[in-house]
């Protein structure tokens, strides 16, 4: 590829000194790119002149695999899409498939679904903030404090479903099995302990001058661009749009819970906004968890789904507010036990549309921070 100047950019030629642009491939093996993700950046000194994201290194063609197996057999593969949040991926798929058939999910299962989803949101935000601060250079300390909390929640997932990350817990019409004895009490203990961790974390980070100077004003995303580019999730709310699917769609039983949706006032959002919105969302999730743990009752956990899942020809689009954005599944059924078309709408991929816009003109170190604040997981980007 040529190192000629990108359009709309003038190289300043100094006396006797010939300058060219430096082209760097922040290649697939890179500790700060959150997976096998490559960015071809053209640099003038340290300023980013052009940036092209390249991905597809983890493409497994999950959509084609799902056309050859039954609906239930694709459920374990949805765990591996966004491998940090397997529970919410499962829920989005179960939601899309439940729209194809008439089935009622029992109340205890709905409460447990909300509990699992909010625990997943805590896991995801805590992981993301840890890695974000890691990219800034804090070299592991806040990351491992965050992972400490994540361990407790992963232990809860292991007791409920048998596996820490690839849970495969949701089924069409309910859940696979009920949580064991004492799980709700242990979950309550974890949730009660979490705000102390958040207070400590905020004390560690939110007034730190290094973080403030490196993230404020970096990566501005104006509101119109965010809406037009289809950005969703905390990134959208940091740019000033109050759009949260838990309040708009009210899937599941989210209409029974009182919670607030944090978003910034004003028209643009920078990295610091996205970081702080995630911290605030964690506090709201703790509120929802407390309400759900108090309101859950005994009952069945599986509705009357048919034994062989063979929906009539129909289409459905089921979407949820995943921790990274709007995760949607588009299913076309044609009367056979296998789906005709199975499509995943990945939030991480769509959020990457604005990466280049945010990074141009900044420094190369800022590009790493901006990528960290977008919150991508390559399993979802590439599927």
């Amino acid at each position, binding site marked *: 590829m040529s190192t000629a100047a990108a359009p709309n950019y003038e190289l300043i030629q100094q006396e006797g000194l010939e300058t060219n642009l430096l082209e760097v491939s922040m290649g697939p093996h890179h500790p700060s790119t959150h997976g096998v993700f490559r960015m071809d950046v053209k640099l003038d000194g340290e300023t980013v002149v052009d940036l092209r994201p390249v991905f597809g290194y983890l493409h497994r063609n999950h959509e084609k695999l799902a056309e050859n197996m039954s609906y239930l*057999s694709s*459920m374990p593969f949805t765990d591996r899409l966004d491998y940090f949040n397997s529970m919410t991926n499962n829920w989005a798929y179960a939601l899309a498939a439940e729209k194809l058939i008439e089935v009622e999910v029992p109340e205890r299962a709905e409460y447990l679904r909300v509990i699992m989803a909010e625990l997943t949101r805590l896991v995801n935000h805590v992981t993301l903030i840890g890695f974000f601060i890691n990219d800034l250079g804090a070299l592991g300390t806040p990351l491992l404090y965050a992972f400490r909390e994540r361990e407790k929640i992963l232990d809860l997932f292991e007791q409920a479903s048998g596996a820490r990350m690839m849970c495969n817990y949701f089924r069409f019409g309910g859940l*696979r099995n009920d949580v064991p004895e004492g799980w709700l009490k242990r979950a309550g203990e974890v949730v009660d302990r979490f705000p102390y961790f958040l207070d400590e974390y905020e*004390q560690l980070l939110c007034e730190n001058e290094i973080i403030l100077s490196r993230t404020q004003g970096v990566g501005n995303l104006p509101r119109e661009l965010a809406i037009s580019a289809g950005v969703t999730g905390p990134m959208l709310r940091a740019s000033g749009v109050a759009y949260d699917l838990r309040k708009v769609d009210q899937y599941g039983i989210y209409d029974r819970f009182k919670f607030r949706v944090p978003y910034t006032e004003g028209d643009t959002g920078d990295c610091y906004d996205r970081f702080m919105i995630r911290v605030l969302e964690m506090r709201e999730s703790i509120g929802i968890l407390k309400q759900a743990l108090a309101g859950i009752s005994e009952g069945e956990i599986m509705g009357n789904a048919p034994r062989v899942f063979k929906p009539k020809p129909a289409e459905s689009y089921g979407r949820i507010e995943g921790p990274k954005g709007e995760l949607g599944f588009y299913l076309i059924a044609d009367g056979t036990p296998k789906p005709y078309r199975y499509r995943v709408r990945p939030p991480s991929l769509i959020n990457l549309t604005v990466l280049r816009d945010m990074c141009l003109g900044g420094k190369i170190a800022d590009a790493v921070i901006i990528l960290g604040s977008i919150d991508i997981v390559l399993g979802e980007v590439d599927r």
Partner: protein
Amino acid sequence: MSILGGGIFKGMAVTLRNFLGSYTNKKERLPTIDYSWRADGALPQGIGDYPKEKGEQLSDTTTVTEYSRNFPMLLHDGGEPMDTVRCVACQICERECPPQCIYIEKDYDENGKYIKRPAVFDIDVSVCMSCQICVEVCPFDAIVMNSQFELSTPDRFGGLLMRRDNLLKSNDYYHKIHPEEAAARDAKIAAEKAAKEAKKKAAAEKARAAAEKKAAEAAKEDAK
């Protein structure tokens, strides 16, 4: 009043608290070496010393909990494994397995009649993704999840293919590694058996009552 660098100093106070706490408050500050969520709440033994029976490698009970799952295993009810094996080679798990890692061949006796046992039951463990769908669809409670994870082998081309005899484990072993789940499964089997017995009894009762009625009518006919 805000000193330049005040935020950094506050952060360092947190780090110091965590550092000192890792010596004094292990439960809170170092949860990863302490699996305190065991079913009875007891703290586990030291890492490395786990009970092993001769010839049988139990799962490492100090670093793996009672709830975790790894790869499948076939259940038998004690004694000679192939006499009491529960699997009847119906091949439902083979059909439903998402990565298609199971291969089953039915067993036939000398006359060519199908006896309800698997002759070949292979699971390619390098492909299995521990999704547990085979356990869910089995109608005979014959396949459940093991939690053994020390399965590495230097043989790339066959070492990770588990054959039928490696996969057979007794129901007592299942109770040892997954006590709650095994108890629930045994209770379910017992309940189903009891329901079947009750149905058989009710049918027998009905047949007897019908036969008696018929005999009484026949006697009435004779008396007329």
